């Protein structure tokens, strides 16, 4: 099991500090939530971890590997997957193809095999399809398998987004607001998926979420960001009673 450590990360855009000396350590096998008001830098942090941004100062390590300057496609092969906040799906493809695309690195055959589609290519496609089906089964996406992603409802698209990240076979799953804009039933579904992922699949989960009720319920560890700085961390009940956190969320009296 590998730790993700974010040490002293500062991210600057022009004169603006999106993140200031952030130190976070993510323990394997648990659900870690990152919360904070709008613009606190939660998504920027995830972008740093998944390689879309590179920290101005500081380092990010996953186990022994240094992620600081790795690009997203390199990071995706290290067992870190990311579900996006704003749907970043391949809208012109079916759910099945969206998930199969996440198997890109696992499909190891040459273009000549692909052109004649015989032997290796056909066999590997079928094998990886079986894995995709496992994910579809888990995320309860069976009815939408062949549907074009662009035509699905928002809630389902969010679920496809999580499913696609899962298809990468991650050890560490970064979920960026997987429940934003969902109704209570859909939220309950996603929470159930997250808990099952932790228990049955043994995946470490980093959750960025605005719904504090959910976060307090399911997290093992919480980090609170405000204006790019970590202002509190700990178990849910510790965070809930942290005066700085209460200030940031409710404001001073």
């Amino acid at each position, binding site marked *: 099991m590998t730790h993700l450590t974010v040490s002293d990360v500062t991210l600057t855009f022009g004169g603006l500090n999106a993140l200031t000396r952030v130190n976070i350590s993510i323990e394997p096998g648990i659900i870690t939530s990152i919360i904070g008001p709008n613009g606190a830098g939660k998504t920027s942090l995830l972008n740093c971890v998944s390689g*879309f941004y590179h920290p101005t100062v500081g380092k990010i390590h996953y186990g022994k590997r240094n992620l600081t300057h790795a690009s997203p496609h390199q990071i995706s092969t290290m067992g870190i997957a990311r579900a996006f906040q704003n749907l*970043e799906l391949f809208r012109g493809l079916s759910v099945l193809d969206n998930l199969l695309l996440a198997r890109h690195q696992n499909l190891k055959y040459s273009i000549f095999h692909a052109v004649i*589609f015989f032997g290796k290519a056909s066999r590997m496609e*079928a094998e990886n399809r079986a894995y995709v089906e496992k994910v579809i089964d888990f995320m309860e996406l069976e009815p939408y398998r062949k549907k074009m992603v662009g035509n699905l409802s928002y809630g389902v698209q969010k679920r496809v987004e999580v499913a696609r990240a899962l298809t990468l076979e991650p050890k560490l799953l970064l979920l960026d607001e997987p429940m934003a804009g969902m109704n209570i039933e859909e939220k309950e579904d996603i929470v159930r998926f997250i808990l099952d992922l932790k228990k049955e699949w043994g995946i470490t989960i980093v959750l960025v979420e605005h719904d504090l009720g959910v976060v307090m319920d399911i997290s093992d560890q919480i980090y609170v960001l405000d204006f790019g700085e970590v202002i509190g961390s700990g178990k849910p009940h510790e965070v809930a009673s942290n005066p700085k956190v209460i200030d940031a969320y409710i404001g001073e009296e």
Partner: protein
Amino acid sequence: MSSNRWFATGNYFTSYKEEQRIFFTSLDRSAMVLLILALFLWPLFIQVDNKYMLVIDNILVAVVAVMGLNLVTGFAGLISIGHAAFVGIGAYTIACFGRVLGENHMLLTHAWPLMIVFAGCIGAVFGGIVGLPALRLRHLYLAIATLSFQMIFQWTINFMDFFNQGQTISVTRVAWVTGTVSRSEHYTFWYYAILVAIVLVGFAVRNLLRTRYGRCLVAVRDNDRAADAMGMHPGFTKVYAFALAGFFAGVAGALHAYLYRGVGIESFTLSHSISFLAMAIVGGLGTLHGAFWGPLAIKILDLQVEQLSEWVGNHLTFATNLATALKPLSFGLVIVLFLMFEPRGIANWWRIVRSYVKLWPFRY
């Protein structure tokens, strides 16, 4: 399993391999076999004037080229305005061999299938080089980069003595098992040769599209950020798309060179690039069979309009100026109308028909 996919209510596959197949039922497969057979056999029964055979050959060459353009523009979403230049690269590869080795060298006359594949490879290399800006540029800027390649290509050919300054460089007749292909059977021979190429290339593309090498193209079209996060390098995927398009263009160019028995710059100008793009749009971007409909529609339209303008020129002498303008006018009109009313091209009609039959007698 239902014997007819068109009327089936669902799918009843029991393995993933079954679902990978191109033809789900024996009916589908035999329909395709019959179609291909018909395409091969009709010249035996119907005698066609050489002039029209050339038009048909021309359409087929355009099909190969548009198939490549469709991969880069339709599937990978990268507008390429230099496709005719890639076709030209293929044609000039053949011409170069003729110039260096002598026109009637064994390689050109006997190993012509090899030469065609080789021309494709050269096209792929150039495609990859021209695609390099895709590592940095996007959208319109990338289109301009491809346009600049078209310009560089034309300029280079026009000013280099080696390429006869754009004047025609002749290409040899090829040999077949029956001996050298004579003038009378030239067009029919090439009809068969190009048809074989299309069948091979068509199935290759169809296979490619159901593997990682095809899916990654659509991924960079739809969302290259997500493609990056899913483990593919978006930049290199785009370069690869250009290389792929370059290969098809190179093959088309070599076929063109052999078919016309000559290579001149006038067949690979900017207007040809635009007309390839128009064929791809009219046929249907992002569909495989669109690459067949597009060239067919545009070339037949051209032919009809040519006849019309000839008639107008002969009979309505006061409108001769109009007659010469008819061809570009109708061409432009067709593109505008398609962009307005059927941006998904002729391929979409096929989709509509199929879903109608599948749902019949219900409306939806």
